[in-house]
């Protein structure tokens, strides 16, 4: 029952060259309604179900102090009542028709994910269209859902030492940009969100021209498009949301976070400011992350877990986001481990990357891993819908899903070394340590 919440770790890792005949750009039908809603349709009759995913271009990057966490709060309120379908009706009607749904909010996007039998298509399209602008924010429901989010924050962050450290390190490394705070928001904001402000936020970002609708599964495209037009055409386009203008200033020296709290095991994290997902440096850093951090054969696992036995596990890398993101190195240290030694070992390994980059064998390994991840993500109708939607939000084009391999394939091995030299510098580094106090030895 271990799980992390909220932050959608994009594994949209993409390798077109290797795309087989199973899923091609040509399979995607693209439509745009007059109100600006982009619609992607992929017929896939493997199972008698449909995945209906709606992506909105809004996430924690669009928030401001006082309203932190409101993107995610609206995600919850989206199940809580419109003028047409009162609180709870969405779920009741959907489940009666055999459907289920979830949703997630990330730094850059909010996605609503529905899975249902083919026969429920019209009912689901009707309800999705209805809640795009129809939420009523019933005051009692607003308050009850606030409690749910507070519980989610207690579960996801406050009662998870690793998450506490990550939140602190992120907020220390990122000074100005809204990636400063976690998607869930600060507890004091959660407890004091105002209904009128949250409603205004919803009206700003929930419009057909700020979203993408994706259907993958067992339907006929012509009929599905008719239904989409029937229910969505009447929704007016909104004013374009304000751009996010804050740019994170360059870090000017190493930053350190030390947390002392009751715990049986320490936590450790090291981060560096990295590029955004469209930056040419994203590819070499993403390639580097595989032999450096992924799996038991990775450099850091071998050093920290196997040889020096300082850690239980190691993972990390860089996520795809619209604005520059942190490259993260997470380590779960052993109880009593020397965290200074642990940091020194990572520094040594980063030095090697800066000096020599990765080997040819490691480079090929990275490409194999990336390719394998990619196909794993495309095994289901939901996986396909998710990858296309994320690609739309991050790159403004689902086509990027089918061409990104060019980005990976074009990376020369030496670019990995150069990227390591550019980003893994002392001035660009933030280190966090959670040191246990009290508790068992």
């Amino acid at each position, binding site marked *: *029952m271990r799980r992390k919440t909220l932050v959608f770790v994009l594994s949209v890792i993409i390798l077109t060259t290797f795309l087989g005949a199973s899923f091609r750009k040509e399979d995607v039908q693209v439509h745009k309604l007059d109100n600006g809603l982009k619609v992607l349709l992929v017929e896939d009759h493997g199972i008698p179900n449909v995945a209906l995913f709606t992506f909105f271009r809004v996430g924690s990057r669009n928030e401001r102090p006082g309203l932190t966490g409101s993107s995610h709060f609206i995600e919850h309120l989206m199940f809580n009542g419109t003028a047409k379908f009162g609180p709870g009706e969405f779920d009741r009607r959907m489940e009666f028709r*055999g459907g289920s749904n979830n949703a997630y909010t990330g730094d850059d996007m909010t996605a609503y994910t529905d899975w249902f039998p083919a026969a429920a298509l019209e009912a689901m399209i009707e309800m999705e269209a209805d809640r795009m602008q129809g939420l009523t924010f019933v005051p009692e429901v607003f308050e009850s859902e606030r409690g749910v989010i507070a519980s989610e924050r207690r*579960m996801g962050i406050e009662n*998870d030492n690793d998450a506490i450290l990550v939140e602190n390190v992120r907020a220390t490394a990122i000074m100005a940009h809204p990636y400063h705070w976690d998607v869930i928001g600060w507890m004091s904001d959660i407890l004091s969100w105002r209904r009128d402000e949250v409603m205004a936020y919803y009206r700003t970002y929930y419009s057909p021209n700020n979203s993408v609708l994706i259907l993958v599964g067992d339907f006929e495209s012509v009929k599905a498009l008719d239904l989409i037009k029937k229910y969505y055409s009447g929704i007016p386009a909104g004013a374009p949301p304000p751009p996010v203008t804050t740019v994170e200033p360059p870090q000017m020296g190493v930053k350190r976070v030390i947390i002392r709290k009751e715990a*049986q095991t320490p936590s450790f994290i090291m981060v560096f400011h990295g590029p955004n997902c469209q930056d040419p440096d994203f590819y070499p850093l993403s390639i580097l992350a595989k032999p450096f951090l992924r799996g038991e054969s990775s450099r850091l696992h071998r050093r920290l877990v196997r040889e020096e036995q300082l850690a239980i596990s190691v993972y990390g890398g860089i996520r795809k986001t619209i604005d520059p993101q942190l490259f993260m190195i997470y380590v779960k240290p052993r109880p009593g481990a020397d965290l200074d030694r642990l940091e020194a070992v990572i520094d040594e390994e980063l030095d090697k990357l800066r000096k020599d980059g990765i080997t040819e064998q490691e480079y090929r390994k990275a490409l194999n891993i990336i390719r394998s991840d990619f196909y794993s993500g495309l*095994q289901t109708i939901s996986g396909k819908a998710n990858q296309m939607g994320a690609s739309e939000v991050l790159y403004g084009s689902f086509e990027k899903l089918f061409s990104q391999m060019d980005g990976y394939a074009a990376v020369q091995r030496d670019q990995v070394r150069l990227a390591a030299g550019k980003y893994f510098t002392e001035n660009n580094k933030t280190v966090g340590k959670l040191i246990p106090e009290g*508790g*068992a030895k």
Partner: protein
Amino acid sequence: MKNTFRTTIAAFLLLLVSVPGEGAFKLPTPEKIVLPNGLTVYCLKSSEVPIVSFRMFIRGAGSAYEPGALEGAANLTADLLLKGTTKMNADVVAEALDFMGADLGISAAEEYAQVSAESLSEHFPKLMEIAADCLIEPAFKEDEFAKERAKRIDNIKAVKDEPGSAVSYYFQKAYFGAHPMGHLALGTESALAKMTIQDIRGFYKARFRPDRAVAAVVGDIDRAKLAGLLKATLGRWKAASGNAPALDIPALPRPKGPKLVLVDKPDATQAYFVMGAPGYPMGDKVTPEAEVMNTLFGVRFTSWLNTELRIKRGLTYGVSSSFQEWAAGGLFSATSYTQNSKIGEMLDITYDLLKKGTGRGFSAEEVESTRNYIQGQFPPTLETNADKAAAYVRLAFYKLGFDYYGKYLAGIGAVSAAGAGKAAASFLPANDYVLVVVGKAADIKPLLAKFGTWEEKKITDPDF
């Protein structure tokens, strides 16, 4: 995320259900290959994606079959199988797997050990070679044993830092006690500390036998090629000599009266609970009625538990109930969490719902909606190659037959409100149950006093 979590058990419950009517989805019948050493492999060619999945269960190699003093041995054995063979050391194995971007995992459930492997089609032969080497010719080196054992002991401490994880292990111990089903997959600090490499070798030798294994391969590979590959890899696994060890598991314990356990975690800002009572064994004829009841009570988003605890009152982010089924019997459990000051209210409501379920039962409309929900959500549970391979192995392991879902269809479609009500009366606990709470005792003890007498533990005490 909006939804409450779904346990693997809940996922499997869905997997046992089928879909009626138009567009019905059927699990394809696999082909069967029996190797000379007694190993049965079911296979299905599927070319949708260039991925091949392998799954195997080895009966009797799970944690319930560990000798009493060796709690954790099954999973430690599984760990060590990946830590070097007679031909390759642990680093070579890891490098070979990672280089292909392939996954190979070995772990122990209660009744079996499980091997799962998946890779791109082009790498599958190499992956099977490595998997077979690990399984058949493990090195069981002393230094690797020491490292893995230390890692497992450390991991138990890490689990105790997360109350949401820790509570389920405290519950398993409180419910099953010294019964073999109470052996924690994690092991315990005290048992692991005494374990030796000889114990692991002994467990492996007695319990890992091809005649007790069943496997499946699903993916983009031809049957002829696969048959040759299996022969050259798992075919090398020597038929076991000597009598196979017993597979008996004593009858599962049944709580008499309430058993209440409070675990103090002074820094917890939420209190986490698990409550459990007897369920039913795998494949029991009550399954359709029990599943409809459970889905309605605590699985789907509009379930009774989620409606009252989350939707109406905002007490929690996550709440669920589930059935766990084994050949030896089953378990019903419900779980949630809330801020320390609200745990009394949360338990009051949970008790009320249990009482309402056993007393009043469910409406015809609720039950109809639940039938539709279970049926509609079934096809995606068998969508991937790994899903299908796991289904074949599970159906074969529990001798349910590959037409199980078809038969089950009739069952699920026929569940009436009365049937679901009967299941509620049978399985929702009234007086006989185990309830474990992990939270900050100083704050929650006064709120819990009214529920009875609590056995108290500290999260920093060794073991569970």
